[in-house]
């Protein structure tokens, strides 16, 4: 798989899910963006796994055999690991219960792979576990200082172009739809047109000479291909 190159150690995610196919789909999804993962199929072993301290984030199903997700969360709260609930219950009260117990987010099944990745990245950034410097070929990005260097030279990017670039580097080799880009960079409430995305992508291609790597996928969106 392609290189998402960061200077941090690999992010490790614990997947607590009793349905083996769903667990597998999550495992494959997070592996696309370069995260490692382990699967637990019941509450008790999940608690033990979290306490081992190997994990940066927990994806926790609510309906588990033996010990349900809420109970697992209560048991691992003290460890301070961010937890995202996965559940088939779209019930608002359940959602509030989960968030009140200290979950960072709540994803209702069925979800799309991209949505899961986006939510995980938001939480990791919130916990400062994402990379602070990103590298793609000869491009170096300092996320905190908002600085982009190409071959050692500073390249001026507008804030939106900067966010878009980070999003592409974080999701290397993933085809991303214009809608997804709009909601990730411009925010969910933005009612803009996909033309806006196209203009910004063209600017990034021009400024960073990425014509060959940042490719258009017909009818879907764009993909930043891994360097070879």
């Amino acid at each position, binding site marked *: 798989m392609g290189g998402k190159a960061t200077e941090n150690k690999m992010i490790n995610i614990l997947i607590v899910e009793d349905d*083996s196919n769903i667990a597998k789909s*999550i495992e494959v*999804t997070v592996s696309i963006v370069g995260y490692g993962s382990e699967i637990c199929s019941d509450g008790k072993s999940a608690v033990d796994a979290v306490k081992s301290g190997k994990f940066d984030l927990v994806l926790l199903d609510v309906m588990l055999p033996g010990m349900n997700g809420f109970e697992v969360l209560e048991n691992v709260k003290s460890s301070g690991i961010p937890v995202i609930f996965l559940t088939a219950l779209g019930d608002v009260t359940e959602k509030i219960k989960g968030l009140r117990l200290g979950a960072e987010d709540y994803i209702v099944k069925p979800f*799309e*792979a991209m949505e899961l990745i986006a939510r995980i990245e938001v939480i990791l950034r919130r916990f400062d576990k994402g990379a602070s410097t990103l590298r793609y070929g000869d491009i170096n990005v300092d996320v905190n200082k908002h600085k982009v260097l190409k071959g050692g030279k500073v390249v001026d990017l507008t804030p939106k172009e900067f966010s878009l670039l980070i999003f592409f580097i974080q999701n290397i080799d993933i085809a991303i739809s214009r809608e997804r880009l709009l909601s990730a960079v411009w925010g969910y409430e933005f009612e803009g047109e996909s033309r806006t995305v196209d203009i910004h992508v063209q600017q990034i291609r021009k400024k960073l000479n990425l014509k060959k790597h940042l490719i258009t996928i017909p009818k879907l969106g764009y993909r930043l291909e891994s360097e070879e």
Partner: protein
Amino acid sequence: MKLWQKIFLITLAFVMIAVSAIAVLLAQSYFSSAIRQQRVGAEAQHEYYAANITNKISYERIKSNELVLPDDKIKSAITDMLSSYSGSKTGIAVYNKNSEIDSIHSDVFKSVPNFIKQVKNSESEYSIITDFNDKTYLIIGSEITLEGQSYYIFTATDITLVYTNHEIALSYIKILSIVFAVVTALMLLAVVYRLLRPLTRVNASIKRIAGGDYEARIDEKGGSEFKELASNVNIMAEAIESNVENLQNIADSRKRFIDNLAHEMKTPLTSIICFADILQIKKNITSEELRDYSGIIVEEAKRLKGLSEKLLELIVADNAELEFRDINISELLKEVENSIKPIIEKRGMKLNITPVNVIIRVDKDLFTSLLYNLIDNAVKASDEGQKIEVKCMLNDDKLTISITDNGVGMIEDDVKKITEPFYMVDKSRSRKAGGAGLGLSLCVEIVKKHNAKLNIDSAVGVGTTVSVIMPVGGGSDE
């Protein structure tokens, strides 16, 4: 106005009116008899004076030896008589046709000139009661004949005391009435309160029941009417409680059904959507990964298909117009055996069917589905190579069809819940076997429609026997 206030005020009013009326009537009758007595006394006295005057005149005439006593002598005789009575308190006056002859204590007579005129004109005895100078007098007037001439004698008796006594009696009655009213009121209040207290209790309990506390009951105490009321309210509360509980149970089981259905649908959907998305967005997918992921998508889609088919069956079983027909149970079992054979053979199992020749009245499609599901469950619970026994037993009018496996079995708690929709004892096991957790719910519905019973006996590690017990010769007549 509240009931106790009404009862209290109305009763108090009636009692007071009755008591006062009786007291006043008594006082009045006492008063009348006192007046009558006074009158009798006064009349006697009047006649005594009149007789004395008549005798005195006769005596004077004899003494003077005259044939007729002259007017002046009559007058002086009368004056003598009256002066001898001046010690008495009675007023006396004597008139002739034209004028007064003499009188003592006579002021009162001046107040009744009309009465005097009346007596003079009618020549008979009359009496009148009149007030004079703060006193009450009984005046009696009558005609006497002295020496052939008409004279009129009037007496006035003081009867003030009778009136004063009457007034004192009346004021006593007033005071006594007030005291009596207060005492009666207090007693009435106590009695009415005691009598109506159960009503307050009943009311409070009804309020609690109306407020949603359906477990509230009333003590069945108090008068017989209240006991009846309380017991009726309790019966009502019980009916409400059980109805609400039934509704709550139905609502709960609906909610459980919907929650479980959502869960059972979303679980395969999650894998399908996630893997489909991965296939779309991931670059460089190896052919091995492609096979793997698409295989999962197909598998999960099949699971959804199985779920929707079972749901449909359940809906059909619930709503369908049943078509009852007489069918030999051995024929039915033969059909089921044929359709389930491939699965049995694939898993290297054995199916042993011991039929009897009995005609049962069933809906063929639904009953076949029932038997198929029960045998299918037995297959799912068994390991490869194990045996399944289907036996029929006729006992009086009841046919028992039992399906026995030597599979995993269940604990008692699972047996109780196993007929609930989506309940699966071992999720991963039953999913692998393609179950959606709806099979037994469907069976329960079908059994109900046939007026039959479903019995489940199970022991962990030993196996499970499911029996359908149904009346022979007719299903439901519904």
